[in-house]
């Protein structure tokens, strides 16, 4: 090293700099590329406008013809050109709210379980009890196990809904049938159990729906719980609260807006879910309080009737699609607005 004079490894300073100004070609390509990106960015906006416009335009004749009666009538009969979607609206709301309730209980429980590190501390306790905690091999284990659990919960969302539908037909319906029979025979005077479960129905559909909204709720709720500043928890523990007293009285209320946002977004998913419901709800034009009665939903109506619909029925289906679009857009915007407020609210606590 010492033999080589230092300067020789460097290129002799030349008049030509390494960097050059862009050529006219470069500038032209640059302008084209940037305009293309600008155009495609607006393209994404155009797509939304096209979806709303296309469905709205195709629904327009039906809106003129059937008016608001469409929302209050209970018959769907293409032969008599009589269309009403009240049973579908009822079924959509009933299954969504029931599924959402079950999904929220499980989803928030999972969010708390994951965000408070219960699993990691349990694994840690086991390692300590067996005297393995100090081994470097196991040092990452609690964190790893928790990561695996989180991925597993997220994988619930990766299973296609048609597979959940298949599973619902062959597992959930046989599983709830004995319970449904018991409730119907013993508590049949209650409106919720007033019919027998004939197979597909509101309850199995809602249970499968609960599984499908659960990952949404648990993921967003977990983010909200993790975002609660640690000093709030520390203050509660310092005042003598137990772990759960801190969770219930301090952490969950601080994250409440975010949890609400997750529930509303889960509601949006439940309203639009199609195939699993078409397979499990029974597709009957019925309005009933009973959780064992079959029902129909807006999305299932579209899925079942569209492939074989004539031009008159397609118009009515487009009207139904427009109603579904309006409801889900509204619910999703409310959910997004709540989540934005949750972010803003936590900033004051940092």
């Amino acid at each position, binding site marked *: 090293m010492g033999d080589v004079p230092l300067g020789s490894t460097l290129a002799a300073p030349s008049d030509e700099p390494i960097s050059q100004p862009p050529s006219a070609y470069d500038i032209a390509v640059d302008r084209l590329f940037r305009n*293309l990106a600008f155009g495609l960015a607006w393209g994404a906006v155009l797509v939304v406008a096209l979806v709303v416009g296309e469905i709205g335009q195709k629904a327009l004749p039906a809106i003129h013809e059937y008016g608001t009666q469409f929302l209050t009538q209970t018959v769907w009969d293409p032969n008599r050109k009589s269309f009403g979607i009240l049973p579908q609206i009822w079924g959509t709301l009933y299954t969504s709210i029931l599924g959402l309730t079950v999904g929220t209980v499980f989803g928030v429980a999972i969010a708390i379980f994951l965000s408070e590190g219960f699993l990691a501390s349990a694994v840690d306790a086991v390692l300590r009890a067996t005297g393995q905690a100090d081994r470097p091999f196991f040092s990452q284990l609690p964190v790893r196990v928790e990561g695996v659990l989180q991925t597993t919960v997220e994988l619930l969302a990766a299973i296609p809904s048609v597979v959940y539908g298949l599973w619902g037909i062959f597992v959930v319906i046989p599983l709830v049938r004995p319970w449904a029979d018991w409730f119907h025979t013993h508590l049949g005077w209650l409106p919720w159990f007033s019919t027998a479960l004939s197979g597909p129905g509101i309850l199995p559909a809602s249970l499968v729906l609960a599984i499908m909204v659960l990952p949404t709720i648990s993921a967003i709720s977990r983010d909200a719980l993790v975002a609660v500043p640690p000093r709030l928890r520390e203050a509660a523990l310092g005042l003598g609260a137990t772990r759960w007293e801190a969770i219930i009285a301090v952490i969950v209320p601080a994250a409440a807006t975010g949890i609400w946002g997750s529930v509303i977004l889960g509601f949006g998913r439940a309203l639009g879910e199609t195939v699993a419901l078409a397979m499990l709800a029974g597709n009957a034009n019925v309005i009933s309080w009973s959780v064992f009665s079959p029902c129909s939903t807006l999305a299932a109506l579209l899925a079942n009737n569209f492939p074989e619909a004539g031009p008159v029925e397609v118009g009515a289906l487009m009207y139904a699609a427009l109603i579904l679009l309006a409801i889900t857009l509204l619910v999703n915007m409310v959910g997004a607005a709540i989540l934005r407020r949750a972010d803003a609210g936590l900033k004051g606590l940092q």
Partner: protein
Amino acid sequence: MKPRGPFADPEHIDLPELERSLRNPRTFLDLLLSTLTGLLTLGALFPLFSVLYLLIVRGGRLLSLSLFTSLPPAAMVAGGGFGNALIGTLLVVAIATAISVPFGIMAAVYTAEIGPETRTTRIVLFAAKILTGLPSILAGVFAYAAVVVVTGGFSAPAGGVALALLMLPTILLTAEDAIKSVPAKMREAAIGMGATPTQVICRILLPTALPGMLTGVMLAVARAAGETAPLLFTALFSDYWISRTNPLFLPKSVSDLMQPTPSLAVLIFNFSSSPFDNQIELAWAAALVLVGLVLVVNLLGRALSRRAIRA
């Protein structure tokens, strides 16, 4: 009020009362709630494992090579498979990917790099969030109105458009995140060398952000491959091979492409309500293949994103 508890009398601290004992209602409640959340979490995982178990047991029974090389069987006819549906799924998803990936990534390049603080960006991101919440059946309704009605028939491109609509927001939003997380130093070094914005994007930002963008693409592909609702009345279904001339392969002509196209998801949907055992068993086998496909792509995407974070 007289103080109570272990410190009531400062002369004498009641040590047993300081110990953790389940007889203390507060400690008991704590343990009860911990157990309850643990059980609820386990309960929520039951469906996942139940689905996987049944798929492997019921679907695995039928699994053989002939499933992938033969056509769906008629009622009560033994044998048969879903080769055409598998090819159809791959074809429709490929069309959707070809539409949504360039579209989504170029839009993300704009929102993340060219005009990050502009009003356009705010509107585009708002539109993308709206698309995220779009029910999948409505993507099908749109593709029906915009493609099926215009071209005059059910076809693979119609299904591809519907799926592309569902993939677009995922790809756009993850690509935006990935581009934004490229270190500013790299961008600044390139600008300092005299690179035009396009050169910075194409030579520095996109290659560096590639793993993150790929994650988004793979998650979107995994989701699209399992979608049924948007295909029901866009690609429809068919009991025949896509290419009439060469059974196992892709469409050979435009007229092949513009035919109703089968897919695994629609096959499962149709056969699940079939009264015939052989078709139901085939639905389980198809579900096993579909879930396997979806989970592999999904997990690969996640593994990529973990590597991206580490780098």
